[in-house]
């Protein structure tokens, strides 16, 4: 299989020459920002005396709420989050910004600010918040069939509570922004954001300026994973506000510990459930209440909760189902988007239940999954019809690739022999819905310019953050224009070139932006084709139609002639003939809609399917384990680049394995995160790779797929990491069938479960 093309920025990245915001020369006169962060999770800010800080040599200005020219509001969908609060809602909330000539001076000056607080009782537990009815919006519900009746008539029922924990994004590049004053009240903000539109909109409200005064430029991000979708906005606003008030360039750059202390994480969920099932393993009813710990402000919590609800049944068709969800307000930093966006939390519950039922019924969990799995034409709880469901093929492949039946026997043998070590095995499948569930976000734009020498410049609203969106866009442009990748430059994201861009999120980056680029290129092509036919005729007298022209490898040919034109030659001709060489492409995902009140609709353009199998060996005395092997089968349409997708699959798997078995967030009684560095918060390292790893990408040729038949890849494989959790649980249940493993499955949790 060809590994081409390589990462568009690969040569730059590997030589340290790629550009990241703030990892560049300081601008003349630039000021450095440092913040006073609240030490309390819930308090009233009674007084703030910044005079000593302001008087310190080298300090240019100290900015607080009273300096804001426009609205003191950075909440976007739900307008609940001030830039600088009077009622502090989380520990780490910024209360004042010091701007100084030197970062050490700014830092010292922060310590000179005197603040008075009136402490209020904080809430950190989602259950408590829920009992207090502290919700951003009223309860959400999705329902189909008759759950009450089905539960009443079920042969067996089982109830329980399942919890999953938060996760720090740990993007390698911390939060940052630089603002630069331009003429006539225009400000250029270099922001490490996944959403240029939101940054622009919020800054314009805070500064009281029209959006066209705010230019957002994003060269690339050093990782994001959702952590810069909304959580980047506040820092961009800070930089812009600093520049607006001082007319100087301002740099905001969080250190790793600041970043980990003050930014929101993945939502911890707590879910109560009841299932009805038969002795043969059919699940007839599922009732579920999902509680999301949203942190201090709404942020994206409601949409995240909603995606958890949409994924609550994962790959199972359960005829009677009622899914309720409440996103709760607590005094933690506002939890935010994180790869999977609630889906992992929803899926974790049903997969836990299946594992439990299998163990109760003495059945193989895979058999139960097959027995209850979606078939074509089934309806989801929210009424979307399942079509071209490849689950059976995915399971077949996975069984074959892992030699599943033999593996189970091997494991049993091993476990009978071994006293201090036990092996475990688990399969976790996924059905992941692709599209923003907020339908209006499913639109994208691209601007394509072909210059006179035939080189091409493409800007989309998408953000490059390591997912290789740029490479995928270049592949699309290369295919549509029939030119080599080397001729294409995918530009930074910039609100002047592409405005009103949806966040690069929900795995939709290449679907939306790739399609927009394709449409722009097709429009240019619609003019280039007749021009090419004309040129052929004038050069060689070949009579040919515009439609029969073949654009490939930078050459244009037609069946009727052995001669071919070069792309560059055609572009020169087109320019001379006054044919436009640029186009703006616009794409909106067709047919997606959802009625929140009724809980019915077609929120997803399509689904991505797959399954993973993990095999672990657990050391019963230390609680540590080896990940012996992992097999993944991933259905993926017709991939634009199998290598890029493979990188996404493994990257997501390892990140998820971290969430499930290693990464642990702890805060103290005051709501201050204690795990604020990589020495206390452990993300997977290279030694955490499975000893054996096999990935098979199933080309499904699904007709509902997106650009050139490809499917999204960013988030769905995140679900696979859960197989490590369930394999560990399986190993533990070899010792004690009733053992309950808490989340995440750290050695500590494992030893506790074994007790």
């Amino acid at each position, binding site marked *: 299989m060809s590994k081409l093309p390589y990462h568009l920025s690969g040569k*730059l990245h590997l030589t340290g020459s790629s550009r990241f915001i703030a990892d560049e020369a300081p601008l003349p006169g630039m000021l450095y920002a440092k913040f006073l962060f609240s030490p309390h999770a819930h308090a009233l800010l009674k007084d703030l005396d910044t005079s000593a800080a302001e008087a310190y040599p080298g300090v240019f200005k100290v900015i607080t709420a009273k300096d804001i020219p426009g609205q003191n509001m950075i909440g976007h969908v739900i307008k609940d989050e001030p830039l600088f609060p009077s009622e502090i809602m989380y520990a780490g909330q910024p209360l004042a910004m010091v701007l100084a000539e030197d970062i050490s001076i700014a830092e010292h000056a922060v310590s000179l600010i005197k603040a008075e607080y009136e402490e209020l009782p904080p809430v950190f537990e989602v259950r408590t918040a829920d009992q207090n009815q502290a919700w951003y919006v009223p309860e959400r519900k999705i329902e189909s069939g008759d759950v009450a009746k089905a539960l009443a008539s079920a042969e067996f029922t089982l109830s329980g509570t399942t919890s999953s924990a938060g996760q720090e994004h740990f993007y390698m590049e911390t939060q940052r922004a630089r603002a630069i004053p331009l003429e006539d009240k225009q400000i250029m903000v270099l922001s490490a954001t996944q959403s240029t539109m939101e940054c622009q909109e919020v800054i314009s409200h805070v500064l009281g300026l029209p959006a066209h005064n705010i230019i957002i430029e994003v060269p690339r991000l050093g990782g994001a994973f959702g952590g810069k979708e909304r959580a980047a906005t506040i820092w961009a606003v800070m930089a812009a506000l600093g520049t607006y008030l001082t007319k100087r360039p301002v740099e905001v750059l969080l250190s790793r510990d600041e970043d980990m202390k003050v930014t929101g994480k993945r939502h911890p969920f707590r879910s109560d459930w009841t299932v009805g099932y038969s002795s043969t393993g059919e699940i007839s009813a599922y009732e579920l209440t999902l509680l999301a710990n949203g942190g201090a402000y709404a942020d994206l919590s409601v949409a995240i909760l909603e995606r958890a609800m949409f994924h609550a049944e994962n790959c199972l068709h359960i005829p009677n189902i009622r899914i309720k969800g409440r996103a709760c307000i607590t005094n933690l930093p506002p939890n935010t988007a994180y790869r999977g966006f609630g889906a992992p939390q929803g899926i974790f519950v049903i997969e836990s239940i299946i594992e439990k039922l299998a163990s109760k019924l003495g059945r193989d969990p895979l058999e139960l999954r097959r027995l209850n799995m979606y078939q074509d034409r089934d309806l989801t709880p929210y009424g979307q019809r399942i079509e071209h469901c490849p689950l059976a093929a995915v399971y077949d492949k996975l069984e074959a690739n892992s030699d599943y039946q033999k593996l189970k026997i091997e494991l049993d043998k091993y476990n009978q022999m071994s006293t201090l070590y036990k092996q475990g095995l688990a399969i976790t499948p996924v059905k992941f819905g692709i599209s923003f569930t907020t339908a209006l976000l499913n639109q994208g734009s691209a601007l394509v310019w072909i210059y006179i020498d035939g080189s091409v410049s493409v800007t989309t609203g998408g953000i490059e953050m390591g997912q290789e969106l740029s490479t995928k866009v270049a592949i699309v442009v290369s295919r549509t224009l029939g030119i080599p990748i080397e001729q294409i430059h995918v530009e930074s994201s910039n609100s002047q070139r592409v405005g009103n861009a949806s966040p690069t999120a929900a795995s939709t980056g290449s679907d939306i932006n790739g399609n927009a680029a394709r449409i722009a290129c097709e429009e240019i092509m619609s003019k280039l084709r007749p021009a090419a036919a004309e040129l052929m005729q004038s050069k060689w007298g070949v009579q040919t139609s515009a439609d029969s022209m073949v654009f490939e490898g930078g050459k244009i040919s037609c069946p009727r002639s052995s001669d071919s034109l070069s792309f560059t030659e055609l572009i020169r001709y087109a320019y001379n003939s006054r044919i436009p060489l640029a186009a703006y492409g616009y794409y909106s995902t067709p047919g997606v809609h959802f009625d929140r009140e009724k809980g019915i609709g077609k929120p997803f353009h399509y689904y991505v399917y797959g399954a993973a199998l993990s095999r672990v060996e657990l050391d019963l005395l230390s609680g540590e384990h080896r990940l012996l092997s992992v097999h993944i089968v991933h259905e993926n349409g017709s991939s634009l680049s199998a290598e890029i997708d493979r990188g996404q699959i493994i990257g997501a798997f390892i990140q998820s394995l971290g969430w499930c078995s290693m990464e642990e967030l702890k805060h103290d009684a005051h709501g201050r995160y204690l795990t604020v560095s990589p020495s206390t918060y452990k993300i997977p390292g290279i030694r955490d790779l499975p000893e054996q790893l096999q990935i098979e990408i199933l080309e499904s040729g699904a007709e509902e797929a997106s650009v050139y038949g490809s499917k999204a890849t960013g988030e769905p494989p995140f679900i696979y990491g859960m197989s490590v959790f369930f394999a560990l649980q399986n190993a533990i249940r070899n010792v004690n069938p009733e053992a309950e493993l808490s989340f995440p499955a750290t*050695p500590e949790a494992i030893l506790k479960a074994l007790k």
Partner: protein
Amino acid sequence: MDYTYNRISFFMNGKAVSADLPPAISTLDYLNKSCGLYGTKCSCNEGDCGACTVVIAYVREGAVMYEAINSCLYPAAKLHGKHLLTIEALGSPDQLHPIQEAMLRHHSTQCGYCSPGFVMSAFALFAMKQKPDREEILAALEGNLCRCTGYDSILNAMEELSRTQNPETIVPTWARALEPELFRFKTPVLCFNQQSSSLHSSGAYHLPSSLEEAFSLLEEHPEARIINGGTDIMVQVNISRLKIPVLIDISGIDSLRQISLNKDGVRIGAAVTYSDLERSGIVKTDLPWLLELTKVLASRQIRNFGTLSGNIANASPIGDSLPLLLVLNASLILSSKASQRQIPLKDFFLSYKKTALAAGELITEIVIPIPPQGAYIKFIKAAKRKAVDISAIASAICLETDPQGLIKTARLALGGAAEIPKLSSGFSSILGIKPEDINAEELANLLASEFQPISDVRGSAAYRQTLIKNQILKYLDEVSRRQP
């Protein structure tokens, strides 16, 4: 404010450089802020992520070593007389280095933020080792975090390089050409006073080249703190913003960077790094347990400048090496201008982070007696992650039996279980009995009652109690399986 600056001379990316450094500035800050080089990335600033990895080349025992280090923790003053290689010098987009070429082909980069660090770690590996095996590759890269790729593509690139790469092409010719200069280097460090409006973490940074010089400095600056590798002090400087009036760096004192075999055991000089231990034939032959320990301690980068004596002087209750050194009956040579004394390691730790080190004194050597043949010696480190993690509980054991098979030596030491790393007193209850007659459960319970660990971010007290018990069970299980 007035600070004592260092004027140092070294080589950077092939060129001779003279630099005036504010005290205790890290190599990373020097690169980013003074040199305008931004390829070396700051992601954690505490040596735990590897994004800032650079390579130093210097002469050690008659050869030039290429070693990866965390530039965020490496005081720039230490560069004196060395050759610093950064990502800027290793290939360019138009002419990739073979490592970069392989990583490009294998899609080993996604967001790119960690990539320069991985390239530099790989460079040091391949510069020193032809055809490294999988374990050597993992050891070289365990100190580099990547949040995007999941590492598989990086490992594949390295394994391919190991199979196919001509080792001659790894170290660039300009770097090889400079090696003789490193042997010839003689220029001293200069100290001078300078005003600065920036606030620096230390008032002065001294780099004595002899013990006498170090003692004089200590006498002159009684408030000074000794810095050796600096892998702990620099974390406090970078993260806790610790201000230290004067720092005296003893890592450049050649006489302290020696490992020797003496009548009383293996003597390890204070400036010996963990990597020195890994390379030492003496350690491999006579203290294989120390070699094993070194492999699971910290990361490649940290091991390249972190020292055993620093781990001891830091006196962390969970210092990884301490339980093993305790059961090996290690002792310390403490020297001052006027005197020298030897103290058993077990008497060195007084209370939390307090040691028996007197004013004006340094640890100059660690003495580890060679245990008798047939002794059962082992250590266990319990942590959340397989590599580069601080333990929740670390322990070590030393058991010996007499010709009748009765236990005549029984030592067990624990780290993370009390305010200091310490030997168990209750463990001696198994003296005089046969290993197979030990009631494992009973002994484990006894030990668990001797130590009262606390709860913190790395684990609850209950978890630590379980670990203490289970580690003992594991030792005893292993002892019972030993061939007599």
